[in-house]
């Protein structure tokens, strides 16, 4: 730390210097800019504004002349004469002509009006408290002297008349009396107008409002004179100034003499003898018709103002100088010439001169100001750049470090900036940098202080802001130091929390049971429904909300139904035996998906179980086949050699007998092995029946024919009943033959010799099954249940000494099962009964191939 050299940018003095240069250069450039603008405005002032200013003053005066002088305006700025003639105790205003306006306005006390009578005697003059700030009643000051024209677009035009104490009593009385009458006659309730501005926009102005019926409301000092306004019909907007100066006979003052007033009740009340009369006669103004004549009148020579200045000598205007001549010719016979003067007196306190003089001074250096402004800005930019680079570095620490100042929320700077900008703008627009301010001695000191302080403050602020901003940007603490940044961080945190809560909620919801989910959903639906019902403004919006809700509900229900249908299809397939079917999981959500998964699990289990059992069945069958094969080979040798032995010449009878026993038993073994193979195949489903249309009657008779001789040998008589009616069934003839073979063989073996065997086939009309019944009398007592008989290796006689495997009935039953034939055994004492129930097929119902199949698959035809 110690060995580090202090760098330039860590020098506080340099930074201070840079900051100072910043502030000063910015302030200087600001002022330079202001002065540049003022210089530009200066020209305008002399060329245009000054004239306008005077014009307005004159216009105001002329306007006021038509309304007579009001209290306030007489405190005003104008001086002039109005001829008022008095004859027979009556005053007649012959001529209202402003000859001179000496001017200053505002709070000037050296401006006044002089109203002189025909003899030139001053009727009225004033120098008192000229204050235009209050203006005419109903008019704002600024409006008066800047932009206002007044128009009164109602049928009845009221002009403002004010009582003025400076009038002679007779005049005041006459005027007020007259106005009273007019006012009463017209019962005006309000006075309003539209202020039209130069820039084209207009405002509605309510000037006065009175209750015309209640006399008490009448203002003490204000009276109204009605001008009948004929211009309205033309759509023109009459303005008082225009009325007068246009000299339109229809709207001249003469029209409102009492005799001409269109208010008969009022007129009749008037008594000329009793009351002082006030007559307004037509204003006749005669002016030079042409420019030349006017020039001849006034010429290049200024009018002799001394004529008028005699009265105002006392006001300190010794040598008034003509500044502006205002002339306006409106019509041939009505021309008003107003001449306005501004006394040119350097020592005068007329602020107009001050303004002009001071701006003139500024104007002298007008070329310098823009250059200074640009230079100031450049200086500011350079020093600000240096400052921005350097600030943030302080000696002991390495790298830029924010100070406490840089931790202040940036919004405060922004706020201050806005405030300062607003203040500057306000001060500027309030005229702090305007000519008027310069011209006003009363406010000069304060103004100057403000003028300097505000730009200085603003510059200092800008510099400070720049410094801290650069530090913040350099140390990447801008957002952190911003309230906005804090707010954003807090908002982010809140949103994160909210997401967490939502997630938890969703998790919680998903763990709910379906019932509760459904209940919740229905409650939600009802809630929205209720809300819609309560808050819907009308039936249409309620209907709309309900339709939307119902559409949502329908979509949800349809989605659920779709899922349910899919699962139903799947379960149908599984139930139909298609164990390899898989559920369609597309568009399945939530509980239904879970259900589909579970069902698939069940299906998987079934598939596995079926596979397992199939495999084990196949293994079992294979085992039996192999075993029987392996048994057959040695058996073959046994059978053959016994046979050979039996053919040998053997003397011993005993030996012959033994050989016969072996022969018999080996034959039996052979049969046993064959039957075993057969029964295992039949019961394990390894035999596929080959169904075809079979004549059951024929099958039975064929079978019996095969056994005819065996029956005879066994000393049995067969009683066969075969119906006339054909019995057609869908059977595998070869398998069926084996069934009958086994049964008939059984009968031959186990029947009591000399008995009858009843074999019958029968079917009833309309029945869908035929029955083949075998009945025989058992040779031995059958103390066994019919079910046991069909079990493997069980025989009716327990001795087992006869030929047979005991598998016959079992094979028969298995083969019947394969062909959907019912196999039923019953025992009634010695009566053994076997019954086959064969399902019949209709004529149209042929289960399998129409081609006659081979009765034996090992037929030679297969070889071809």
């Amino acid at each position, binding site marked *: 730390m110690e060995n580090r050299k202090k760098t330039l940018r860590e020098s506080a003095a340099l930074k201070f210097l840079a900051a100072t240069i910043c502030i000063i250069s910015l302030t200087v450039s600001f002022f330079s800019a202001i002065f540049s603008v003022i210089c530009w405005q200066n020209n305008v002032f002399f060329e245009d504004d000054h004239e306008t200013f005077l014009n307005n003053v004159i216009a105001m005066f002329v306007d006021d002349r038509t309304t007579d002088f009001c209290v306030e305006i007489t405190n005003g700025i104008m001086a002039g004469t109005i001829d008022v003639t008095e004859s027979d105790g009556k005053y007649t205003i012959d001529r209202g002509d402003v000859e001179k306006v000496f001017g200053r306005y505002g709070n000037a006390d050296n401006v006044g009006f002089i109203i002189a009578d025909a003899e030139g005697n001053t009727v009225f003059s004033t120098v008192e408290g000229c204050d235009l700030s209050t203006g005419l009643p109903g008019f704002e000051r600024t409006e008066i002297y800047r932009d206002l024209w007044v128009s009164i677009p109602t049928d009845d035009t009221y002009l403002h008349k004010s009582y003025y104490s400076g009038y002679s009593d007779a005049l005041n009385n006459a005027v007020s009396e007259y106005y009273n009458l007019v006012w009463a006659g017209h019962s005006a309730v309000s006075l309003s107008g539209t202020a039209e501005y130069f820039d084209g926009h207009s405002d509605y102005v309510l000037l006065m409002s009175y209750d015309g019926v209640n006399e008490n409301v009448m203002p003490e000092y204000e009276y109204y004179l009605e001008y009948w306004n004929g211009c309205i019909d033309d759509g023109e907007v009459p303005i008082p100034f225009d009325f007068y100066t246009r000299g339109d006979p229809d709207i001249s003052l003469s029209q409102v003499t009492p005799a001409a007033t269109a208010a008969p009740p009022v007129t009749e009340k008037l008594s000329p003898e009793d009351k002082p009369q006030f007559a307004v006669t037509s204003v006749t103004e005669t002016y030079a018709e042409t420019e030349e004549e006017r020039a001849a009148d006034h010429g290049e020579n200024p009018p002799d103002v001394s004529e008028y200045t005699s009265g105002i000598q006392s006001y300190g205007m010794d040598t008034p100088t003509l500044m502006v001549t205002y002339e306006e010719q409106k019509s041939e016979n009505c021309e008003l010439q107003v001449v306005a003067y501004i006394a040119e007196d350097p020592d005068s306190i007329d602020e107009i001169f001050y303004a002009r003089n001071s701006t003139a001074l500024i104007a002298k250096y007008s070329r310098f100001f823009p250059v200074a402004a640009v230079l100031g800005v450049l200086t500011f930019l350079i020093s600000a750049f240096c400052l921005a680079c350097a600030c943030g570095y302080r000696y002991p620490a390495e790298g830029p470090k924010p100070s406490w100042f840089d931790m202040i929320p940036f919004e405060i700077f922004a706020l201050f900036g806005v405030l300062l900008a607003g203040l500057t703008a306000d001060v500027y627009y309030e005229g702090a940098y305007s000519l008027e301010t310069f011209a006003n001695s009363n406010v000069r000191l304060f103004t100057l202080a403000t003028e300097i302080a505000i730009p200085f403050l603003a510059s200092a602020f800008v510099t400070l802001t720049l410094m801290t901003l650069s530090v913040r940007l350099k140390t990447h603490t801008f957002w952190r130091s911003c309230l906005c940044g804090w707010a954003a961080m807090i908002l982010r945190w809140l949103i994160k929390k909210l997401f967490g809560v939502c997630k938890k909620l969703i998790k919680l919801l998903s763990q709910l049971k379906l019932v509760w989910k459904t209940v919740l959903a229905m409650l939600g639906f009802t809630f929205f429904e209720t809300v819609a019902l309560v808050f819907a403004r009308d039936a249409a919006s309620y209907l709309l909300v309900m339709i939307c809700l119902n559409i949502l509900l329908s979509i949800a229900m349809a989605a659920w139904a779709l899922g349910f249908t899919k699962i139903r299809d799947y379960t149908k397939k599984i139930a139909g035996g298609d164990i390899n079917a898989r559920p369609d999981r597309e568009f399945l959500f939530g509980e239904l998906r879970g259900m589909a998964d579970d069902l698939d699990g069940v299906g998987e289990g079934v598939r596995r179980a079926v596979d397992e059992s199939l495999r084990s069945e196949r293994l079992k069958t294979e085992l039996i086949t192999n075993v029987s094969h392996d048994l057959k080979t040695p058996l073959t040798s046994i059978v053959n050699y016994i046979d*050979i032995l039996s053919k040998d010449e053997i003397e011993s009878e005993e030996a012959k007998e033994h050989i016969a026993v072996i022969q018999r038993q080996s034959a039996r073994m052979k049969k046993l092995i*064959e039957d075993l193979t057969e029964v295992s195949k039949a019961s394990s489903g390894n035999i596929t029946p080959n169904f075809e249309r*079979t004549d059951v009657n024929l099958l039975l008779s064929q079978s*019996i024919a095969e056994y005819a001789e065996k029956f005879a040998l066994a000393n049995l008589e067969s009683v066969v009943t075969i119906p006339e009616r054909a019995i057609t069934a869908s059977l595998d003839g070869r398998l069926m*033959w084996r069934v009958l073979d086994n049964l008939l063989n059984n009968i031959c073996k186990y029947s009591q010799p000399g008995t009858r065997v009843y074999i019958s086939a029968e079917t009833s009309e309309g029945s869908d099954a035929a029955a083949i019944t075998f009945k025989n009398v058992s040779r031995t007592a059958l103390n066994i249940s019919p079910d046991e008989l069909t079990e493997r290796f069980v025989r009716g006689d327990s001795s087992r000494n006869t030929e047979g495997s005991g598998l016959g009935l079992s094979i028969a039953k298995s083969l019947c099962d394969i062909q959907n034939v019912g196999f039923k055994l019953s025992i009634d004492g010695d009566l053994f009964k076997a019954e086959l129930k064969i399902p019949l097929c209709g004529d149209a119902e042929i289960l399998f191939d129409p081609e006659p199949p081979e009765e034996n698959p090992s037929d*030679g035809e297969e*070889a071809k």
Partner: protein
Amino acid sequence: MYNILICDDERDIVSALKIYLSGEGYNLFEAYNGAEALEILRSNKIHLVLLDIMMPGVDGLAALSEMRSFTNVPVIFLTAKSEDVDKIVGLNLGADDYVTKPFNPIELMARVKSHIRRYVMLGSLPESPDVIRIGGVELNDSDRTVTVDGEPVKLTAKEYDILNFLMSNAGVIYSPAEIYCRVWGNVPVGVDNAIAVHIRHIREKIEINPAEPRYLKVVWGRGYKFDKSDKDD
């Protein structure tokens, strides 16, 4: 003197067969697997082969398909494999007969004799329009005689008529009623059983093993037919 090749891996069975067949006067060759059998067949004039299927090395099926490429000597499978599938495979490969173990020696002798006779007699007799020959059964309509493998068979008149009818329409299944109609010439009245008994009698006379008929077959539930196939079990 006919030469018979016995091929079986079970020497005891071969010995027993030798005893039976030499008793009949045949000249015997022995083989204990397919390869030996093929070797003998190639080097000797053999009139009949008795072939086991399950043998070490070249088994019976492979041996048969090999020997069928150079000879059409009658081959009788003699095997413990009694499955239908095995029979079909064996016969399709070109075996002439299929006898399952344990076999009946008498039946086997009859079959051997039948096949040899047929093999050596084939085409030797002049054809006559009155003679119907299917397999080993020969029906001569001109003198109403029937021989099986050259041996005359005594049939009753009705039996001859039925056999004649069925042989003339070999391969077609006829129900008893149809047979009656065609043979007797009138409509049957409850004669099913009579026809069935006649058929059984014929079978007993012309078949080696009536329980497993080779020519006159029962189509259960449909009727009877005379199989026109030459090869049969």
